[in-house]
Structures are given as structure tokens and as C-alpha cells.
């Protein structure tokens, strides 16, 4: 469901005013329950500012951009002892991506038979790694940008949820427990989504300015297993998923009058994660490998070809709460192309060092500030929406953000 709803500049100022009013007057409320019912409503609004010194990374932000905001509104209700339904509308502006269009982020019917078996169907959040289902939730982490090596913000609108079904549950084993999720479905995709920038990067496949004009995919399937270990605060996670027949079409860059069609028969994601919470500290590390064959065809001229695409990404992070109000965090992430990796070629890797500071004004309003030093230009896109015709080897990125949640 895509509803064309774009905020005007005046509307943006108005929204900022409302947030400011909330800060000053303290009008923000907790997630709201309707009296004498099980209906709950909630949501968040965040507005940030991104400034990059050199390259447009992770989006068009060289010299600074205010096009960095997210908003969501959800409502849920329960029926009987086992059935729950709910939905969330979401909009984002991330440089040129999102454009404040309201989309259906998730909409589920969930029937929980017991603690070890439940079924969730509809538009369901996509489990991947520690934070794949919570990409937009500023309130649950100190960082503004999750490590790009595992959570590419360009892919947020593509990998946040899927249409299909999931079975899930939790099984106790001795002094630990295992939470599992197994899912299948498909992901609605169109050229407006951030994934299109992967196809349009460098202009080698599809001709600018249109780039890929049509995308589709058959299915996504996957599973996740979380081991809540006997060590208090330590959990280990394994996630695997794959897309089948991810196709893109558009004018061929080598000869725009004809159509290039691409097909990725299978693109897989495997992620291993660990998180350890002890006292005021949270330590986390994740490693991810992606990959699949990209097949190319230009039937009009009888051309066909292909190549393997994929990357290895990992990061380590640490954060610490400082009293009730502050939280500091830092991470180091590494991302590199899987094939033909050459450590002396900045285009083959990206090293991202980040430090963050979070301040909670109250339970519902927070502020964050973050700085990155990014070395290497891997996944530094050069597309009509994220231009980097001559990327520099390294870049400094600053971000500030405030979030109102209820």
C-alpha cells in the first residue's frame, strides 16, 4: 500500500514545532491504551540532520541535509486469549529515498497457541541479525545509524518486512531457551526503493537518468534461531534467508534503446550475531555474508552474461549507560566485496568507525549525536539519487537526531 503523502516545507516546520512543544511542555505520553479495551496505539517521530564532509554517504548528505526523518503510527488489539492483530504506517525521508511517502510497515494477525508455537501472517517484520526487525527504533539503541556493514540504510525500505507468514516459538532447554522463527513470503519492490541504487550504481548496467525502471521478485524464505544462553545477558543468534528470482529491467547502459534484464536466481544472507548485556554495558558483534549470481541479458542484441555479487560485513560495538539520562556507544564496522578483494583498492572496502552520545530528556524524547570516520568507498553509491562521480577515499560524517516516541 503506497499512499502519496508528502510533507510540505510548511508541514515540516509545523511538525518540528509540535515536537518542540512536546519537549518544552512535556506533553508526550506513554504508549496509549484505550480505557476498558485491549486497544493500544503507539508511534514515533524523529528528525535528524546528516552532514558529510566529502562523499554522499550513506545518502545524499554532502554539505548537510535535513532530509533525515522517520515517523510511524501503530494500533493493535487482541481478541480472546490467543489472537492479536495490529498494523503500523511508516514514512521516511533519507536523502532522496522515501520522500515521506506513507507505507504499510507491518500489518499482522498473530495466533499464539502456546509459548513454543505461534503463527503470524500478513506484512511481517523481517528477522535478520540482532536488529533487523527494529531498524527504525531509535529508542532501543544509542546509535543513530546502525553499522552499515550489516544494516545498510539504503536497503531499509526493502528488507524491513515481507508479505507472507511466519511460525515462531520459544523452547526451554535446561537453563537456557531457544527462540525460533521460520518464514516465507515475498517483498513488494519497485524502482523507488533504495535497492534500486545497487542496480544503478556507477551506471554500468542501466542507462541514466532512468536507471532500472522495473523490479520484481518471487519469494523470500528464511529462519532465525536465538539462543538465550545460561549466561545471564548473553544471547547468540543465527539468521539465514534468501531471495529467489530478483529481477530488474531498464534501458541498457551500453545501448539505451534496448532493454537489459537482470536476474538473480538466488541471493542469500547469513548472519551470526552475539550480544552481551551486563550491568550498564552492552557488547555486540555481528558477521554477515551475502551473495548470489547476477545474470544479464539483452535479448535484442543477443547478449548474455553474468557475475557473482556479494559482500562480507562485520562489526563490533559497545555501549554504556551513564545514569538515567546518558548513553555512550562506539562501533567499528568493516565491509568488503567478496570477489576480487584488493585491500589497496578503496573501492573494495569500507571501514566505519563511529562514536555516539544519547541523551534521554524523559521517557519519550531523546537526542543523539554521532560522528563517523569512513575509510574506503565500497557501497559509496554513484547514482542519480546519491551522486558520487569522483568519490574520495575517506569521509567524515556527522549526524544529530531527536526522537519523540509514545
Amino acid at each position, binding site marked *: 500500500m503506497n499512499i502519496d503523502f508528502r510533507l510540505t516545507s510548511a508541514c515540516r516546520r509545523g511538525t518540528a514545532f509540535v515536537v518542540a512543544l512536546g519537549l518544552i511542555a512535556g506533553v508526550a505520553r506513554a504508549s496509549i491504551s484505550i480505557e476498558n479495551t485491549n486497544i493500544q496505539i503507539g508511534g514515533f517521530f524523529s528528525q535528524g540532520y546528516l552532514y558529510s564532509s566529502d562523499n554522499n554517504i550513506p545518502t545524499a548528505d554532502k554539505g548537510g541535509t535535513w532530509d533525515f526523518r522517520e515517523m*510511524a503510527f*501503530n494500533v*493493535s488489539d487482541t481478541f480472546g*486469549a490467543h489472537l492479536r492483530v495490529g498494523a503500523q504506517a511508516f514514512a521516511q525521508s533519507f536523502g532522496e529515498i522515501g520522500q515521506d511517502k506513507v507505507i504499510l510497515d507491518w500489518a499482522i494477525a498473530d495466533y*499464539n497457541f502456546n*509459548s513454543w508455537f505461534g503463527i503470524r501472517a500478513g506484512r511481517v517484520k523481517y528477522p535478520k541479525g540482532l536488529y533487523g526487525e527494529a531498524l*527504525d527504533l531509535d529508542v532501543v539503541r544509542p546509535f543513530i545509524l546502525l553499522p552499515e556493514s550489516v544494516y545498510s540504510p539504503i536497503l531499509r525500505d526493502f528488507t524491513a518486512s515481507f508479505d507472507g507468514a511466519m511460525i515462531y516459538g520459544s523452547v526451554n532447554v535446561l537453563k537456557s531457551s531457544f527462540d525460533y522463527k521460520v518464514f516465507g513470503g515475498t517483498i513488494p519492490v519497485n524502482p523507488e526503493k533504495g535497492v534500486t541504487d545497487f542496480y544503478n550504481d556507477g551506471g554500468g548496467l542501466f542507462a541514466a537518468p532512468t536507471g532500472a525502471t522495473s523490479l520484481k521478485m518471487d519469494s523470500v524464505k528464511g529462519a532465525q534461531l536465538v539462543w538465550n544462553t545460561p549466561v545471564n545477558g548473553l544471547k547468540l543468534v543465527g539468521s539465514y534467508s534468501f531471495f529467489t528470482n530478483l529481477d530488474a529491467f531498464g534501458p541498457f547502459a551500453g545501448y539505451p534503446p534496448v532493454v537489459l534484464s537482470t536476474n538473480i536466481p538466488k541471493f542469500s544472507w547469513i548472519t551470526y550475531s552475539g550480544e552481551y548485556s551486563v550491568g550498564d554495558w552492552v557488547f555486540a558483534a555481528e558477521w554477515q555474508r551475502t551473495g548470489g549470481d547476477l545474470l544479464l541479458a539483452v535479448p535484442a542484441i543477443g547478449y548474455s552474461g553474468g557475475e557473482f555479487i556479494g559482500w562480507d560485513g562485520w562489526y563490533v560495538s559497545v555501549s554504556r549507560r551513564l545514569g538515567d539520562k546518558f548513553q555512550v556507544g562506539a562501533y567499528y564496522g568493516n565491509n568488503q566485496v567478496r570477489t576480487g578483494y584488493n585491500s589497496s583498492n578503496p573501492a573494495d572496502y569500507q571501514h566505519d568507525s563511529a562514536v555516539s552520545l544519547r541523551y534521554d530528556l524523559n521517557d519519550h524524547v531523546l537526542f543523539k549525536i554521532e560522528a563517523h570516520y569512513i575509510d574506503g568507498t565500497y557501497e559509496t553509491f554513484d547514482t542519480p539519487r546519491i551522486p558520487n562521480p569522483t568519490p574520495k577515499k575517506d569521509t567524515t560524517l556527522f549526524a544529530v537526531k531527536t526522537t519523540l516516541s509514545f
Partner: protein
Amino acid sequence: MNTRSLRRFGALAFIIAFATAAHAAPVIIANKGLEKEKLDVATVKAVFLGKKVAWDVGGRVILAVIKTGPVADEFLKANVEMSSSGFNNLWRRLAMTGGGTAPKSFESEEDLRKFVAATPGAVGFVDSANVDASVVVLTPGA
């Protein structure tokens, strides 16, 4: 330290000891309809983590929690093995991603107890000093 100072110190120590004693231990309270519900330690954890959403005796689990404070800290650490901030983050995450219905949150234990007493399926925790006959206390077995 002279005699007067010793008396003052003793009085202060008594006040502190009394205040500490006034904060007993958190207990699980539930609506009277759950009197026959059997709980063990793992079930308590599953209930407060949102993994068990229906009672064995029937009806949906309705969670009620104290927002912050030593009672919440102590209960969550002992029964859920989480800090208050970790617990809040977990539920924010579940509620915002379609993973669960967030607990009802209360500023005062008295309000929480009244809610539990009036709401079938409701369960929460309060300091044992704030329990009355309007609710039942559920004690987890081994």
C-alpha cells in the same frame, strides 16, 4: 565522637534500617480469577517476556508493571534477568514491530494493584507490603 553524636548516629541508623525494612520484597500479584494458575520460574519469565500470552486456566495474560524504581529493578532482575531499561527496550521493540502487546504501565503500586484486581487475566508485581485481599499472590514453584 561524643555521646550526643553517638545518639544522633544511632537514631539515623535506626531510621535507615526501618526505611530499608519498609521496602520488603516484590511479589507477583494476580487477578483472583488466576488463583488456581500454577507458575514455575520459567513460566514467570515467559509471561513477562511476552512469550506466554494465555493462561492455562483460560484467558489472556494482561501484564501490569511499575514504570521505574527499586521494586521494578529488583523484580525484573530476579525474575526476568533484565534491567529495567532492558525490559523497557524489549517491550518497546515488541510493540513497535508487531511482536506483542505492551504491558500496562503504572506510576504507583496502588494503581497497579487496583488494575490487577479489576482486570481478568491481569498479573503484575508490587512490594509485598502493598498486597491486600483484592488480589492473589502467585508464588512460583521450582
